[in-house]
Structure formats: structure tokens, C-alpha cells
């Protein structure tokens, strides 16, 4: 069995000699998978370990470097694996919903939306336009918040500390809105099968409009001026991590990662759901303004301008909400969620890319199998390819530009 060749045998590790002060210590803990006999005398194996300020979670990247230049890179994931798919088989469908929140914990609204839509499509439930509009509003607010974190932490990795705090200040306002609606700031369990958990409170539309006004007029232009077009920032990123479109498609990069390389593919336009076909917005694509198309700068650029497009969608959705007739948000929520026997693969456009749920139902109250295709998992699979030949500082830039959240990769 291939996996039995454990790490202990695969390579002599960096654990060093056995420490007599540590009884029962396993030999060579935390070793390198690479065969260290074949190492050049110039090369070094550097471990950007699971604990690191810039790897956006518990990710371990093993780099084989020649000085500062990376010759090979190997990411190791699984430090945050929480057996999501096994849990799904033991709880009922409403019970699965909070687990989905916790996968991509930075953009939780998108996860519950995806799962709710998957079950609804399999069961044939159609929600009212009011609920659809609420879902769109929440998803787009979450997209702005998630991209704020992505761009903010990315600039912090590159060295500019201030835009991170400015963006987080605005994200706090969005989280206040979420708290007002459903009581939670980060993990909401908001989208249910057949509806949403709480109706919008009175005054929500006005509060959101105020937030958007400030965002459109102050935060977004400031962000562009201060950091995105900053010369140092551009020089760090514009020739780094260039991913050609064919490579991106083959390794299933989706969302801003794919759009940064050129193809204008957005699920909200290609396979719309929850009423997205009725909104007027553009698909943001990388332009290769400062270097080859598909660089880290382009991916980051797509995320930045997508915040503005989300704001556009939000304005339209809020206009509709004011005029729309309010229905009961729990109207179509079934007492017992029991989809018919069958299977479905349904995908939505989460802030990090295409989030897909493959659901197999055998007609019971518990799902038979839930497999999640997380966009960050596939984005990480191209990492070893892009990291060859770059410097260590660029590895940080690459990880940040792929915008990974380990909760989603490991589930």
C-alpha cells in the first residue's frame, strides 16, 4: 500500500538525534518527504511550517531552495481536516448546514447558500423572489467582506500594514449588519433549505446603503490610490506567479484566480442561480496592465474591482427589496428535509471560486454522501507548478494571491 511508506521511511528527517529528555518520542518527527541523499550541496530544504504568519492558516510548504531561489515546492495540507464529509453522513440536512459554514469561515454565507441550493434543486423546492433577493444581498455583502480580508492580508504580506486596518474597519460594518440580522458575526447558519433563518430587520436597507455610500466614495478609491497602483507593490507582483489560462483551466482554478488569467468566466453569468440573471453587472477580468497576464497582481486586481461590482449588484438588490412584497422567509422550509433518491452536483460562485457540492441522497433524512469541491483545494494544487524558479518572498506573494483558506482546503 503506497501510504504505508510513511514519512519516517521516506527521508531522514530534520528531527535530529533522539532527545533523552523526551521519553517515548517518535523517531524523526516532522520529516521531509524528499530524499535527502539526492540533495545538492548548494540546496537547502526550508520549511515554511504550519505555524507561519503569512500562510493564511495551517499550511506547510516545503521548499527546496538554492539560496533564495526555489527549485521545488511541496505543499502539505490536512492540518485542519475535521472530517466534514464523514459528519454529514451522521446528521440530517439542517444539521449539515452549520458544518458548511465552518469550511470557508471567512466567507460563510456562500457555503450555506451553495448547500441550500443543492438540496433545493434535488428536492425541487423553489423559494420566493423575496428570499432570493435576500440571499443575493447577503452573498454580495459577504463577497465584499471576504475580498476585503483577502486584499488586506495580501498587502500586509507584501509589507504595507495600513490598508489591512482600513479594509478591516469597513468589514466590521458589514459584520455588524450580519450580527443585526442573524446574531452572528462570522458563522451564520443563515441560508436554510427552503429559505433563510431570519428576515431582514427594519432599517437594514438604509444601513446597507450608508455603508455602500462610504465604501464607494472613500474606501475603494483610497485603496486604489494608496496601494494597488503603488509602484513598489506593482513591482513586487506584476511578473510573479504568472499562470497561463490553459494551466489554470487544467488545474481547475476558478473565480478570481481564473479571471486573473484572462477567461471571463463567472458562474453568476454562466450558470446563474438565485436570480442573478436579472442583475446588471460586469465580469471583472485581469488586464495584464503592468506585466504578463495572469500574474499575482492580476488576481489581486480582480478581487479589488470585484468589490465594486458587488456594490453595484447590492444597489440594485436593495432597490428591489424596497419595492418588493415581503413574504415569510420560512414558508418553503420543509418540516423534514428528505430529498428524493438521486444525486446532483451543483456549483455556486463563492468569493474564492467555484464551490461545488456533490450530494448523493438515498431518500433518508441524513445525506448519503456529501462531497465538497472547494475552490481553494484546486487552487492549491497548481502551487507546486507556479512556485518553481521564484524567490522565497515571491512564494508568500503567490500563496496570498491564490487567496486560500485552509478550512476549505482541508474541510
Amino acid at each position: 500500500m503506497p501510504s504505508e511508506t510513511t514519512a519516517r521511511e521516506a527521508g531522514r528527517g530534520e528531527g535530529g538525534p533522539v532527545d533523552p529528555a523526551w521519553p517515548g518520542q517518535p523517531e524523526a518527527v516532522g520529516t521531509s518527504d524528499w530524499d535527502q541523499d539526492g540533495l545538492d550541496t548548494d540546496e537547502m530544504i526550508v520549511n515554511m511550517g504550519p505555524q507561519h504568519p503569512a500562510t493564511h492558516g495551517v499550511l506547510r510548504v516545503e521548499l527546496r531552495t538554492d539560496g533564495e531561489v526555489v527549485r521545488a515546492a511541496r505543499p502539505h495540507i490536512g492540518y485542519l481536516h475535521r472530517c466534514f464529509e464523514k459528519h454529514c453522513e451522521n446528521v440530517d440536512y439542517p444539521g449539515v448546514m452549520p458544518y458548511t459554514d465552518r469550511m470557508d469561515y471567512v466567507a460563510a454565507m456562500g457555503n450555506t447558500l451553495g448547500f441550500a441550493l443543492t438540496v433545493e434543486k434535488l428536492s425541487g423546492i423553489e423559494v420566493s423572489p423575496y428570499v432570493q433577493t435576500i440571499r443575493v444581498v447577503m452573498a454580495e455583502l459577504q463577497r465584499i467582506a471576504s475580498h476585503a480580508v483577502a486584499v488586506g492580508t495580501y498587502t500586509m504580506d507584501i509589507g504595507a500594514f495600513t490598508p489591512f486596518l482600513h479594509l478591516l474597519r469597513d468589514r466590521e460594518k458589514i459584520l455588524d449588519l450580519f450580527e443585526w440580522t442573524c446574531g452572528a458575526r462570522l458563522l451564520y447558519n443563515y441560508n436554510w433549505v427552503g429559505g433563510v433563518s431570519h428576515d431582514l430587520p427594519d432599517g437594514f436597507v438604509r444601513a446597507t446603503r450608508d455603508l455602500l455610500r462610504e465604501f464607494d466614495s472613500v474606501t475603494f478609491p483610497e485603496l486604489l490610490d494608496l496601494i494597488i497602483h503603488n509602484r513598489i507593490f506593482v513591482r513586487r507582483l506584476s511578473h510573479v506567479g504568472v499562470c497561463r489560462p490553459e494551466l489554470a483551466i487544467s488545474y481547475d482554478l476558478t473565480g478570481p484566480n481564473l479571471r486573473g488569467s484572462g477567461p471571463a468566466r463567472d458562474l453568476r453569468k454562466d450558470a446563474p442561480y438565485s436570480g442573478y440573471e436579472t442583475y446588471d453587472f460586469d465580469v471583472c477580468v485581469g488586464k495584464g496592465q503592468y506585466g504578463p497576464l495572469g500574474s499575482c497582481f492580476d488576481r489581486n486586481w480582480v478581487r479589488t474591482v470585484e468589490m465594486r461590482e458587488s456594490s453595484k449588484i447590492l444597489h440594485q438588490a436593495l432597490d428591489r427589496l424596497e419595492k418588493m412584497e415581503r413574504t415569510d422567509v420560512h414558508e418553503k422550509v420543509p418540516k423534514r428535509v428528505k430529498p428524493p433518491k438521486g444525486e446532483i452536483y451543483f456549483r455556486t460562485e463563492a468569493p474564492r471560486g467555484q464551490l461545488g457540492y456533490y450530494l448523493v441522497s438515498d431518500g433518508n433524512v441524513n445525506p448519503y454522501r456529501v462531497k465538497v469541491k472547494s475552490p481553494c483545494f484546486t487552487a492549491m494544487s497548481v502551487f507546486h507548478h507556479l512556485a518553481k524558479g521564484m524567490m522565497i518572498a515571491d512564494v508568500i506573494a503567490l500563496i496570498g494571491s491564490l487567496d486560500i483558506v485552509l478550512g476549505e482546503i482541508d474541510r
Partner: protein
Amino acid sequence: MDATYAYLVQLLPAAAGWPPWLVVALIAALPALACFTFMSLGPLVYVYAERKISAFMQDRLGPMRVGPYGLLQTAADTVKLLFKEAIFPKGVDRRLFVIAPVLVNVGAFMPFVVIPWGARLQPADLNVGVFYVVAIASLSTVGLIMAGWASNNKYSLFGAMRSAAQIVSYEIPAVMILLVPVMIVGSLSLHDITEAQAGGLQSWFLFRYFPLMPVAFVVFFVAGLAETNRAPFDIPEAESELVAGFHTEYSGFFFAMFFMAEYTEMFVLSAVASVLFLGGYLAPVPALQQIGPVTIGSLSIGPVATGWLWLWLKAWSLVFVMMWLRWTLPRSRVDQLMYIAWKVLLPIALVLVAVVGFFVLQPATAGGFPWDRWVGWPLAALLVAFLFFVMVRALQWNRRRAQELAAQVTP
């Protein structure tokens, strides 16, 4: 030295009879001790200032709890660091590990010996002042490399190597630029360089050979930023890449020593730049050099020399600019940093030395161009007016924002 001896004899008439070696030791040690004591209190203030300045730039408040407006924060931090366990990781070279912070501090504090705070307020007026500053400041590089090597940690080694490369590279343009005021004055002594700028703001070296000297000042400042590992050149301690670079493994008091050294180096650079270009302890208007005597009733205070205050103010504004830059700009990558040093700053420095040297040799332009006298005050006035204008606009904007927010709260 003579002045100190005269003062000592005045205080203690018995000192005239002491053995010469004791007298010499006292004369050498006392001013240096006084200077060192005064300067080592500096980091207390700088750290607090940095935290407050960075907080206001990032739209937050900074330390507010420890003491009124957080004024005692640094004291609390120092006490905490003193009580922390000084951890010696397994495998470190103990001797080098301990000596490294000492060396770095030596390189940071020793330059204060030659910095003139007044016409005769200088611990030692070496006639090779400038040369001494450059030479002794290079000791801190050795300390850095020792810290990186002794830590038995690949990241620290990376940080130390980067830092060595960076400091050595930027030393060259910095030293070249140092030659320029030296050429104009014809002496390496910092006291003579300051006296050569006597006569008010218009004779400061910043405005000589206009527009060449401002360029020289900027080059010196940028090169100095890189010497002290401040952003945008803080690659050696790039927090988000190498955790803390060469001082990753240091904790407790050793870390405090590195911290102290960094802020002291910043102040040293600013002080040297002020002495060389901004007139040192000279007041912008000669009449302000001595205040007094002031008679209130029968009490007569003064005359008080204000030289130390002017140097302190100038050094402090440069320190403020350094902090300002740190929290605004992202950081450059290592090879981009090297590019700036060797391909941008060094050519400019060489050209400047050659051109200014040529003009110094001509009797007609020995002290500067004919229009230099008229440049100083208008430029200074322009700068102050600009800052004032920006401040007024910022206050107006603040007031308007507060009104808007107040209007939004009432439903």
C-alpha cells in the same frame, strides 16, 4: 576635553592634584556616560511615538490604558521584557548568541560620542568625526550576522544574510554622499561641519548648490533607511515572511536590546543627517540661538543656549518621516532592493560627488551657487504652508465626517 577639565577643576579643586590617568579617565568617561544615559532613555519615547503614530495613521487609537493616553506603555513593556525568560534554543552557539545583541548596540550607541549638541556640548570632538561614525556603525552589521548564525535557525540565517547584503550595499552610496559636505567644509569633524553652516537657515547645506544638495540629502536619507532596516527596506525582519528575521529566536531582554538598537540607530541616522545637511545645533535664525537673559522681577534667567533643542527637533522630524514611510509603503523584494542600491543610488552618488567636487574647487562657487541664499527661506516657508494646508483640510474633513455620522444615527 579642555573645557571638561576646566569644569572639573572648578567643581573639585582637589582634582588638580590627582594622578593624570585618573583625570583623563574621568574626563573621557563622564560625558560619554551622561550621553549614553540620556540616549538610552530615547527608545522609551520612540517606541511610544511609533505606536501612536502608526495607530493614528491606521485609524485607531494605539496604547490608551497604561497611564494617561498610554504614556507608560513602554515602561510596562520594558518591565515585562526584563522579566521574560531568556530562552536559549537547542543548538545555539551560546557565546555568539549573547554577544550579538551587545555588538549591535555598540554600533548603535557609539556614534553619539561625536554628535555635537552645542558649540562645546560634544562628548568628544574627534577630528575624524564622520569617518568614525561610519566605521563604528558598521559594527552592528557584524552583530546582525552573528545573531543570525548563532540562532541555529534557517530563517534567522536567511534574515542575517539578507541584512548583510543590504547594509553593505547601501553603505556605499551613503558614504559617498557623506563626502559631499566634507568636501565643502574641508574637514571631517562634525563640529566644523556644523559651524560651516552658521548664519541662519539659508546657509544650511541642504540649500547649497541648489538643486544638487537636496538630491544628496534624499539619497543619504534613503540609503540610511536601508542601513537601519526600516521599511520599505525591512526585508531582514520581514514579519510576514521570516517571522522576525535574524532576531526570531531572541526573547526577553535580548529582544529588548535589539529593539533598542533599532530605534537608536534611527535616531543616530537622523541626527547625523541633521548635522550634515540641516545645520545641526544651529537655529534657523541666529538670534534664536541663545535665549535670554530674561528678567522677571528680580530673577534673571539665562542666557540659555538652545542648540540641543534645535538638533533634537530636526532629528525628531526626520524620525517622524521614517515612521511615516514605514506605515505607508510596502516592502521591496531583496533583488529589487539591491537594484535600487547599485543601479540607482550609487550612480547618483558618484555623479554628485564629482560635480560638487568640481564646483568646490572653483573659487567662484567654493561655498555654493550664487542663488543659494535666496532659496532656503522660500522653500521652508512653502513646506510649512503645505503642511499647514493639509492639516486644515484634514480637520475640515474630520468635522464634516463627524456631522454626517451624527446625522445618520437619528432615524
